[in-house]
């Protein structure tokens, strides 16, 4: 699904990613863990096509296609979704209106007409139910005055609506209490399928109790220094990151 080869990237002249290799197949869930400043969010931004970051070497392939020449919205149209660590507020634009705009923009890119209102409403209801979202929430301004948990749930709601081929969840667990965490994780699990793939970026092992990864990678100083199965996450939880630094 997504292949990253020897990826180097910099922001404002500072090299953050120093040679990442990653191969995520359809149907898989990968977790990327690592201490602060190791490059986890940068990796997410680079894959999503944020032009604040410059790829200086290596490439990213989605279903075998090089993404280098695609801007952020084209990558989205190709099926890349990023659940933001800090979702932005757009005052005056309701959650419903935003998702409608996004869905129709993606449909347009595929040469389809706008989704009929009735179909859209049905889908919204179905996905809202999946994530335990009530209808009042849908008419609120996007992320404005949302709690941390509401923001993250809204991200996963958008993912559910857009049904991306490849999703990166950037610290979706941060700021969530245990109930919200369960709802979000449950949502992700239900969306998981044999035709899509998910990369979960997280600081803590906690989320991985609910979203069980097939592979765990440890990122440190811009490189993946260790890969393993879910047991690696438990090991990190028990021993911290210090021993990882020695591997680098």
């Amino acid at each position, binding site marked *: 699904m997504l292949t990253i080869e020897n990826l180097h990237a910099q922001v404002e002249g500072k090299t953050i990613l120093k040679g990442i290799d990653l191969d995520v197949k359809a149907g898989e869930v990968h977790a990327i863990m690592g201490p602060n400043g190791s490059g986890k969010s940068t990796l997410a931004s680079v894959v*999503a*096509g*944020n*032009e*604040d970051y410059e790829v200086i070497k290596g490439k990213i392939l989605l279903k075998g296609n090089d993404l280098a020449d695609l*801007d*952020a*919205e084209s*990558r*989205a*149209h190709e099926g890349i*979704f*990023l659940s*933001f660590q800090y*979702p*932005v507020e*757009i*005052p*005056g*634009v309701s959650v419903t*209106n*935003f998702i409608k*705009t*996004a869905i129709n*923009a*993606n449909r347009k*890119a595929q040469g389809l007409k706008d989704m009929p209102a009735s179909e859209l409403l049905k889908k919204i209801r179905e996905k809202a139910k999946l994530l335990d979202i009530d209808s009042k929430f849908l008419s609120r*301004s*996007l992320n404005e005055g949302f709690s941390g948990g509401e923001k993250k749930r809204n991200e996963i709601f*958008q993912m559910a609506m*857009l049904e991306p081929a490849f999703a990166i969840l950037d610290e979706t667990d941060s700021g969530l209490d245990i109930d919200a965490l369960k709802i979000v994780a449950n949502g992700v699990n239900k969306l998981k399928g044999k035709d899509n793939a998910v990369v979960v970026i997280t600081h803590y092992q906690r989320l991985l109790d609910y979203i069980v990864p097939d592979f765990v990678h440890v990122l440190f100083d811009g490189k993946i220094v260790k890969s393993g199965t879910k047991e690696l996450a438990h090991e990190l939880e028990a021993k911290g990151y210090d021993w990882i630094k020695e591997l680098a």
Partner: protein
Amino acid sequence: MAYTEEELKKELETKEYEYGFYTDIESDTFPVGLNEDIIRKISHKKGEPDWMTEWRLDAYSYWSKMEEPEWANVQYKKPDLQAISYYSAPKQKPKYKNLDEVDPELLDTFNKLGISIEEQKKLSGVAVDIVVDSVSVATTFRETLAEKGIIFCSISEAIKDHPELVKKYIGTVIPPKDNYYAALNSAVFTDGSFCYIPKGVKCPMELSTYFRINQAGTGQFERTLVIADESSYVSYLEGCTAPSRDENQLHAAVVELIAMDDAEIKYSTVQNWYPGDKKGKGGVYNFVTKRGLCNTRSKISWTQVETGSAVTWKYPSCILKGDYSIGEFYSIAVTNNFQQADTGTKMIHLGNNTRSTIISKGISAGKSQNSYRGLVKVGPRAKNARNFSQCDSLLMGNNCGAHTFPYIEAKSNTAHVEHEATTSKIGEDQIFYCNQRGIDTEKAIALIVNGFSKEVLNKLPMEFAVEAQKLLEISLEGSVG
């Protein structure tokens, strides 16, 4: 693609005025210049009674002693008022009974603007009194309105057919000597609209007028008078577009509203005069005086979406004379390129328990300057007056300016006046967020701007809100920083 400042600037500069076309209709135009003779000629041409001619001449004599005001936060070359022709009317004179009689080219013009009269008639139930270059060309639905006793016609017709009403009310809210441009308008106005809603009548449809400057070099001086008699209600829509012209065109309208006891007037404007080219050349000067008088328990709401004009100078105001009267002002003002807008409102609280609300949304892009100027005044005898003002500014790029000049004069210690103001910028993080969801940058800006303006857009009648949204998008395509 994420936009750099440079790319944005370029894109902004290449945005052309979409409604910049010119209709070739033969016109009957006066020689340039202004003097008593010209005023007599205008009055004569329009077949006005003597009192009207005298009223104009009085206004002219005030005006000739006045100075053009300079206090607004705008800079422009003062128009040479002696180089303007003060009368221009399409040649095909007599009024049209139906659309078949209207010049097809004119209808084509309206179609280009997306204003299909037929559609307007059928779909929205809007009666349209279209003013093209100062003379009404088509008036519709008049009979339906007449059944309710509602008068909706051009001001010229009103002067002929309802002189008692015009004579009684014209200039009572905005006296000819009120200000330089109001005085000029009073002297030379060539047409405009008149509306009278009788006691207890709720006007069954939105009354709508589309204005348009059509002839090169003619200033347009519209005069509108709306009278809502006791316990009546009317919603009035005014929309403007102008063709692209090289020289500056002066627009100095006067709008007077009178709400009698328990009456309500909603006055909505979508203004899209030609704003000038990307270098700041040309464009309409829009120096407008709009004011409403509220009697006991009456209410006047001004809603405006201002996207056009090179220079705007406009303060739709309410005089809250009657006890328990209400004044509202909802405004979206968009400036791009070299546009300058100095706009806001005045809420004058004179009666007891009067209330006013001001919601102003300023959006600045390019090298434009956007100022809010508002006065909330509470007279010494006005008990328990309340005002709430909110002024929000949205900036795009680093070369534009947003300014707020709120004036508060509370002479009664029972007054309650609140003012809130915010300034924000469309962030690259907002754009990237939208891009990541598959929404392109233009659409993202439209979305953010519409969200920012929502409180005001919601105040517009439905069919007008759609048009206003379209205008916002056209005016701001590609602008972010």
